[in-house]
């Protein structure tokens, strides 16, 4: 995947908030990238990142009062980087949105995402009561996908973006 600048790759769509769409969309993204780049490992990584972001949005989005039209997936390449972002509706002052922003900050506070992943796994193992959500998906994106994560909340929507350089996938 070294010739990404020679290709135009962009996916931008809104879709229904149904769990089965996670698999449908991540598989579609994987197949699209495979058609362009023919890199099986890299395409699997992009599918994993897409799937984890979509799962996260479905689990923590406001699907009762929120605007379902705000469920949006964007995948594209820019200046040699590939970005996957998922937008989902969120309640104002919602604790899950705050928690998500804190999670992203926590992950980015580690110099090496492998350390963050290890710390999260150990926390899960030590949580015998299973009271807290595992929140393993985002840190998996950072570690396995070698992605930089960012998140923002605006206009009753939260957007989480994973950005990685294809050569490093």
């Amino acid at each position: 995947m070294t010739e990404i600048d020679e290709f135009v790759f962009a996916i931008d769509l809104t879709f229904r908030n149904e769990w089965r769409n996670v698999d449908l969309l991540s598989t579609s993204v994987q197949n699209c990238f495979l058609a362009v780049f023919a890199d099986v490992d890299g395409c699997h990584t992009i599918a994993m990142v897409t799937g984890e972001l979509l799962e996260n949005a479905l689990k923590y989005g406001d699907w009762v009062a929120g605007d379902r039209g705000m469920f949006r997936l964007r995948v594209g390449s820019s200046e040699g980087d590939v970005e996957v972002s998922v937008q989902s509706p969120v309640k104002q002052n919602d604790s899950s949105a705050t928690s998500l922003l804190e999670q992203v900050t926590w992950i980015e506070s580690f110099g090496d995402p492998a350390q963050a992943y290890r710390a999260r796994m150990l926390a899960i193992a030590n949580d015998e009561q299973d009271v807290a959500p595992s929140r393993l998906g985002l840190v998996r994106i950072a570690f396995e996908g070698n992605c930089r994560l960012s998140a923002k909340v605006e206009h009753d929507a939260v957007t989480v973006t994973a950005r990685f350089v294809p050569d490093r996938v």
Partner: protein
Amino acid sequence: MEKLIHGDLSIEVTVAAGVFRCAWHGRSSERAPAETLRPWFAKLLEAVLAGAGSIEMHFEQIERFNSSTITALIKLIQTCRKNNVLLVMVYDQTLKWQRLSFDALRVFEKNDGLFHLRPV
């Protein structure tokens, strides 16, 4: 021990010389896989303990799994250790995603020898 079939995931069990070989196939992408896996793991552990056996989980053929499945596997490692049951996880090291996912679990390998990762 009955085979597990749920959604796109199946786990087939064969027993030989006290080793319960569990072969994962398909995809584990349910919203809450632990709801299915945990009770199945509990039955598996019960059968293993009854025969003083061990467990080999084979992931070479699985297409993908989500982070919730990894969480369930971490819980299984802990449960097996508490019950002094040997658990081995076998994965395909030629697949980058499997190598990354399973190598990370080495943090749970300890001197007690109750948990091993075996790349093939």
